[in-house]
């Protein structure tokens, strides 16, 4: 199994989610994060004091898939998450050694 950690633009979340469900992904976990990258940040000014806010809002998706799904999921992420402008985000893939469904205690591929 693989853990896919994708950092995407917030407003792309709905598109990405649809693309993922289309290729058979049944579950994922989403969180709001702040990203630092090539995009650079923005300047906010409060009563004349300018502050550089380096972080921009991003959405992070963590999903675990069976090894054979990896390819189609990466494809789906690329297609649905892309705008072509700086800041589209990244996808990282890590190996997962074990999975368990809490409700049933199932292990491995059955659990995801």
């Amino acid at each position, binding site marked *: 199994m693989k853990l896919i950690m994708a950092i995407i633009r917030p407003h792309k979340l709905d598109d990405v989610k649809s693309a993922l469900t289309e290729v058979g992904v049944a579950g994922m976990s989403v969180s709001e994060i702040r990203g630092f990258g090539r995009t650079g940040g*923005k300047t*906010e*000014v*409060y009563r004349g004091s300018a502050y550089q*806010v380096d*972080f921009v*809002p991003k959405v992070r998706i963590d999903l675990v898939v069976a090894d054979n799904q990896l390819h189609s999921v990466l494809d789906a992420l690329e297609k649905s998450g892309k705008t072509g402008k700086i800041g589209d985000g990244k996808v990282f893939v890590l190996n997962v050694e074990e999975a368990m469904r809490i409700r049933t205690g199932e292990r491995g591929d059955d659990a995801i």
Partner: protein
Amino acid sequence: MKALDRVRRLFVALAILGMTLTLASVAVAQADTPPPAASAAATPADLAQRVADLEAYVTNGAPKALITAGPGHNAWMMTSSALVLFMTLPGLALFYGGLVRRKNVLSVVAQCFGCAGLVTILWWAIGYSLVFAPGNPVLGGSKFALLAGVTSLPNADYGAWVSQNVFAMYQLMFAIITPALIVGAIAERMKYTAIMAFILGWMFLIYFPLAHMVWGVDGMLNGVWNAKASIKAIDFAGGTVVHMSSGWSALVLSLILGKREGFGQRPFLPHSLVLTAVGTGMLWVGWYGFNAGSAVASDGIAANAFTTTTLATGVACAVWPALEWITRRQPTVLGFCSGAVAGLVVITPGAGFVSPSGAVAIGVLAGVVPFFACTKLKNWLGYDDALDTFGVHGVGGTMGALLTGFFATPDVNGNLSTNLSGIVGKSLWLEQLKAMGLTIVMATAGTVVLAYAVKALFGLRPGKDEEETGLDATDHGESGYHYEEAGG
């Protein structure tokens, strides 16, 4: 290019500042008309007359010699003015602010504050005069420009016992909230400069004339007070002037603007219904100043307006969620808020003219009709009225203006027995229809002209990316919330 632009802005701003300061100094130099000696009792008047004048104070009648602001009436009108300001800041800012997405909350707040700032300057310079100075049936004259001669003494045309300067400030608060209402329809997708430019034009093209026609002493729609009004319509607290004008303009402007990026594809959820509920409570409380204050006195008519406002609002605030309960089993907080605001809107034109029971009937309809306008009509027609300014204020204001024609009764407002005695309870609704038609034409035509003018000059919408990023960041360089330690 950038430098040039900066110079241009500097120039514009200096021009405005300079003009303001110049006008102010002119006005200071001219010295305001000195008010007559405080106690009008100075002139010899026989005792019975003096007692009659005092009685006039108590009953809000017309005094003969005692020309002065009366404490009870002035107290109520100052309170009312504060309440109407409260409706905009923070009331409306919260009501609307809670409904937009987090990234646009400040833009809505800035638009409300912008109306307060801009309109105050216009009102002082010339706006009050264009509305309330005697003029022609369509527009007032320049007599009160720079508030010249607008002192603490009453202007008997509008209130025998209320300081004219308080009256002017009270009406300023109306002039602030009206354009701010439009903001709801075009929220989340119009550039700040474009909005402000639009509102600047809108005040001159639509608000000032319309307010003069309806409330100006010689206005052509002022059926109650102007015997020569060509359309003998009535509008107690702003069904046409405030709600129809803003509501119809909002519809047209939102159509010209087009829909928000992603509208209909992604869910656009209110980022904080808590704020919206708080704003609703404030609007309700403030609206007492709006409606009961429109009596321009603390008299029985104000009392009646207070009562009808409460009843219509309470009833509508029950009816809207009841309809939700019927159709979907879940009464929502947004339903309660929408119902309350709809009730307030619909009763506004008739508040001082209809009976309590009329108000209850109006409240029921206020819960039903805007409910369908917002939940069915909008989806059916497919326009993007972001926060339902048209659905609530346009539809509600229009319905209210008409219902006022049917429910108005001299039983609760003796002023209906003067110029309108022949038509109240009979053909008044026809006059209302005419006034409504005129209002709709002015609001829509004016908005089309202005919107395209602003589009040509400044452009209306931010870029796609800016809209996705959110207007708080792009137009104002701020974020509504920094709940996390290090920005973001």
